[in-house]
């Protein structure tokens, strides 16, 4: 299942494993990315915790953990080539995979229609 946050992250949930990235809208607004700081594998985050940082040409932005969990995998490809996030933000540009420890807030996240409405 595909869900979105108000902070412009997406997550694909497969059981209790969530793959997380930033939306096309966010990538376009940020502009060309020049640096991505991924979390360490094994790092644990609360819902809304600062999990990653991206630097565009102009400024830095935080990426938040959409649900509480532990990082089990990170996408080294985007650390080596941040431009992948701009060219394919919702597939090849994924940031990290979380083993979610608390799925209860899932209902609070946005579905595609609600996210589209948010960005107008």
């Amino acid at each position, binding site marked *: 299942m595909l869900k979105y946050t108000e*902070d*412009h*992250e997406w997550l694909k949930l497969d059981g209790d494993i969530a793959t997380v990235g*930033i939306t096309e*809208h*966010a990538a376009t*607004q*940020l*502009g*060309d990315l*020049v*640096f991505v*700081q991924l979390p360490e594998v094994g790092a644990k985050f609360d819902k809304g915790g600062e999990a990653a*940082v*991206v*630097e565009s*040409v*102009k*400024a*830095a*932005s*935080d*990426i*938040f953990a959409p649900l509480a969990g532990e990082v089990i995998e990170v996408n080294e490809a985007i650390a080596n080539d941040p431009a992948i996030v*701009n060219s394919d933000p919702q597939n090849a540009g994924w940031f990290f995979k979380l083993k979610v420890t608390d799925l209860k807030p899932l209902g609070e996240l946005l579905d595609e229609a609600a996210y589209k409405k948010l*960005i*107008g």
Partner: protein
Amino acid sequence: MSVKVSKTSPEELRRTPLHALHLALGARMVPFAGYDMPLQFESGVLKEHLHTRAAAGLFDVSHMGQIRVLPKSGNIADAARALERLVPADILGMAPDRQRYVVFTNDSGGIHDDAMVANRGDHLLLIVNAACKEADEDRLRVQLADECAVERSERALLALQGPNAEAVLARFAPDCTSLRFMDVRQLLIMGVDCIVMRSGYTGEDGFEISMPSDVAQEISEGLLEDPNVKPIGLGARDTLRLEAGLCLYGSDIDETTTPVEASLAWVIPNVRRRNGERGGGFPGASTIFDQLEHGVMRRRIGLRPEGRIPVRVGAALFARGGEEGSIGNVTSGGFSPTLNAPIAMGYLPSSVARTGNRVFAEVRGQRLPAIVAGLPFVSPRYKRS
């Protein structure tokens, strides 16, 4: 993450003559110095930057101020001498059809604004920063009231920059090929008299072109028809000038920085220095002379962060990774597309401001190592001969 979305230009922002064209070209607009300006076009900042260094970029800089200073006596030397009261520069010695980069100083030796001054034969033409243009005009009008009429020029200003800029412009104005760096000439472009200046803010060869506002869109469209030319936004304008080691007024230079501290002592010619023929006679002269003769406490330098993380304006600088007490600060910083690495400029104490020294910049609570670097980061390619 927080993402700002602006869809419409707020009514309070001013517009240049090219505003409609920017929107038609798909620009992402942002406020800058009270104007609604293009940050980037569809290519994005990185591609626009690299295109300018490879071919030719067209910039709308019509938000900047164009001010004419006319001598009441009809003798341009009088206007030059008058202007020399405000700038530590050699205006009197400037030949017709030439221009210079100058700074307006304040009583502490700090900088009110930086500007280009061109000798147009019977008057001086000043190009000043958008954010300072009203204050610059007022200062000129008040201080030069006895000798000069000061007129605001409501014209458009375009910059065409890059290795192919001459080839592009030559198709419209063949005589542009005879201009050398810092020459100024009135040339016909598409049937209209334009003031063409071989200068710019990118480190590339190129031209800054002043024209009546009502022809700006037509001339822009004409230039953009050349496949060499892409429209370039303020985002790439900033990354280009940073690579070229050029100051941004309000960031790298301001009312608190003297030209000596800013590593701009070269703008002060010998004739205006203490023992020169027209030595002194500008605001802050005694402070500036003292610094020229005895040295400065701090200097503007370049920085090459050692990792991949950009170090940006406002970052504090430290002498050692764990030491307390910042010794300087970053005044401009970002990512260099040409070098594919972060670059920055800032101020450090003179004792530390030596190329090759390692300092530390605080970014998000971490102290990141950076090496003091000479400026520019990318060598200029001006056409001097």
